[in-house]
């Protein structure tokens, strides 16, 4: 060691070792993640038809692929619009429901007085570790026209719908209940992406509702675990302090527990948002978009456009639009859930509160 040149010191070759150790990781991430992403981005701007490698077998066509699904009116645009609508309703219902249910379950199994906590924790977590293919298949059987669910509803005197074969939107069905069966004049006109406003407000189809139930059922267990970990980090003394201040159970939950869970809430909402916008396997299993394309989602549409229609550029374009939607929504959600105790707004609020406190004190002194 002593023979090494002066100035290099004892940590001289650490940099070299560092690079050596992370080289495999860089190589793996580069080959399997970074390069494919940039290749897909290139494909989304090219006319590659799936024959041979995209490099050398295609040419750039500018934004044609994006225009086809976003601007040019036609079947491609309407399919994309339909898939966005379907997935929007799916996200809108699944994310809040699964988060609320996960939080509720976590609070329940976190209670010290609950007997058999271990059993309930396992039971609630079980759907999450089961393959989604298996669960979807079971749901398909449960929800057939004469399946278990409809038999159960039959005992209650309810004539259940033909779940997976019913393309009617639930908002349309509700409107039908009050006598609106077709589009009012204003809604019959073209909305965005080739769908009429009437189509946009259809709500999730009955078939989609089954998938919503399925998603809430399978994912809330995972998120329950995240909430549970966070709940156990909240010390008992904080609970006690809140009780001493006279907070009831509801007040304690909403004013003490929930704010302390905010980082976890952010994680759960973000993971939920990303997962629900990418729903694919349930769609693949339940009939590839049927009934009436009301189960079509952008992720499945991208697959179908590429592999069946051989329009690889268009499929890649759909994937990147989906990527942008997810990024935009995550940023929006981050903004909404931002920490209000830091930043310029927070300082202003703090100063205001301080001023009011002083004024009040001055008034009281008089």
């Amino acid at each position, binding site marked *: 060691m002593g023979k090494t040149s002066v100035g290099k010191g004892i940590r001289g070759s650490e940099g070299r070792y560092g690079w050596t150790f992370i080289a495999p990781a860089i190589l793996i991430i580069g080959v399997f993640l970074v390069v494919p992403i940039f290749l897909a981005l290139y494909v989304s701007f090219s006319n590659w038809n799936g024959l041979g490698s995209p490099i050398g077998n295609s040419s750039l066509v500018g934004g044609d692929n994006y225009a086809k699904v976003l601007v040019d009116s036609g079947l491609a645009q309407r399919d994309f619009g339909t898939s966005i609508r379907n997935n929007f309703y799916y996200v809108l219902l699944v994310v809040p429901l699964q988060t609320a249910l996960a939080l509720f379950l976590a609070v329940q199994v976190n209670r010290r007085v609950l007997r058999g906590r271990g059993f309930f924790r396992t039971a609630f977590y079980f759907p999450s570790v089961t393959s989604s293919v298996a669960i979807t298949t079971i749901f398909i059987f449960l929800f057939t026209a004469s399946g278990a669910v409809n038999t159960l509803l039959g005992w209650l005197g309810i004539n259940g719908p033909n779940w997976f*074969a019913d393309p009617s939107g639930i908002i349309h069905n509700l409107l039908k209940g009050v006598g609106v069966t077709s589009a009012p004049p204003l809604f019959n006109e073209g909305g965005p992406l080739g769908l009429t406003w009437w189509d946009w407000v259809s709500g999730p189809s009955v078939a989609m509702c089954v998938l919503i139930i399925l998603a809430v059922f399978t994912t809330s267990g995972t998120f329950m675990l995240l909430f549970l970990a966070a709940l156990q980090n909240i010390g008992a003394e904080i609970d006690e302090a809140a009780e001493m201040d006279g907070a009831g159970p509801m007040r304690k939950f909403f004013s003490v527990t929930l704010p302390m869970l905010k980082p976890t809430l952010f994680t759960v909402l973000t993971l939920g948002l990303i997962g629900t916008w990418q729903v694919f396997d349930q769609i693949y299993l339940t009939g590839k978009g049927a009934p009436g394309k009301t189960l079509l989602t952008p992720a499945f549409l991208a697959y179908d456009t590429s592999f069946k229609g051989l329009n690889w550029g268009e499929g890649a374009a759909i994937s990147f639009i989906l990527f942008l939607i997810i990024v935009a929504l995550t940023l929006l959600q981050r903004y909404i859930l931002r920490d209000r105790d830091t930043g310029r707004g927070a300082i202003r609020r703090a100063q205001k509160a301080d001023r009011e406190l002083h004024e009040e004190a001055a008034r009281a002194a008089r």
Partner: protein
Amino acid sequence: MRKKTWGAALLAVGVVAGLGACSTGGGDSAEEGQSLTMLIGSSGDAETQAVQAAADAWSEESGNTVEVVAASDLTQQLSQGFAGDDAPDLFYMSWDQFATYASNNYLEPYAEQLPNAGDFYPALQDTFTYNGTFTCAPKDFSTLGLIINTDMWAAAGLTDADIPTDWDSLEAAATKLTTATTVGLSFGLEYARIGVFMNQAGGQLVDGDTVTADSPENLAGLQYVQKLHDAGVLKWPSEISAGWGGEALGAGKAAMVIEGPWIKGIQGDFPDTKYAAYELPEGPGGKSTFTFTNCWGIPAGSETRDAAVNLVEFLTSDDQQLAFGDAFGVLPSTESAAATYAEQHPENASFVAGNDYAVSPVNFAGSATVISDFNAQLESLAGGDAKAILESLQTNLQAALDEANAN
């Protein structure tokens, strides 16, 4: 210590290199005895084994080797193979994907050079002709027929004289067969079934360069289907908890279904169901049925082209096709073999007879997306607006046809 860390780094690099090696795999073709890969979309073990046996027989003769791979998702695996420059040397090419593949230059046009090119049914040759070139050899075909549960038929007091020959007698038979637990007629709610009624009414979807989807004939076809459904004598398989028509027939939920020779497959699940197949009844526009077929696809510019063409010649020979027919119930694609097959298998003779007037469902590059949209819209056919469905089909199909012709 130092040795250990370098060893770990070396191991990690080795793992990466190993993963890389996996993707390339396989050597180049040898000089004489070539090894071919054949990718098939198999209906089951019977088909895989029959194809493997045929391939082995050819290998003996030619000195090449063939590996038969049964795909789990043929379209996806084909796409993957073509994108990776690693397409199988020979594969099943389905009729509905054919035009899309041909228009993207995926396929080697070899069929015209086959010595038996003229023996195939003209309708099947048309299906696999792209831009005036007969591209790939039809493997076999299936037509749609009316499958009747014979026990229920007799129980309803119907005789051979009542076998439906036109729309009125079909409706009459379906009405008679409908009971509290059984529906008279059932078939899938899709273009591949409902389209035959549009054709039987005298309609067609494409006439040269123009789409004629919104014709009064096509409307009449849809309205007849609507009428049967409104009367309660026709139900879609999904309405009676069946996955497809064959299951509805086998489980006794439907007395009549419209399916093809693949109906034989229900014997495994429902060995007690007795049925017979007849030609589809005639509509106001005459007889019509659909013919579905696969061809033997060879990738464009394949290195093993000559060997693969030789194998196709062997596989489409009358003897070999009859052997396939015996093994898994497909109908031979050459007229002479089909005639022999009809004699040997009288229970399937009506399917062969149907091919004399059968047409192929519409298939040009890009039509598949439009047809799947049409299928989605058909979901609202019961109690819906048939005219609006056809108008939307007209617009979309014309746009797709214009685009296909422009390329």
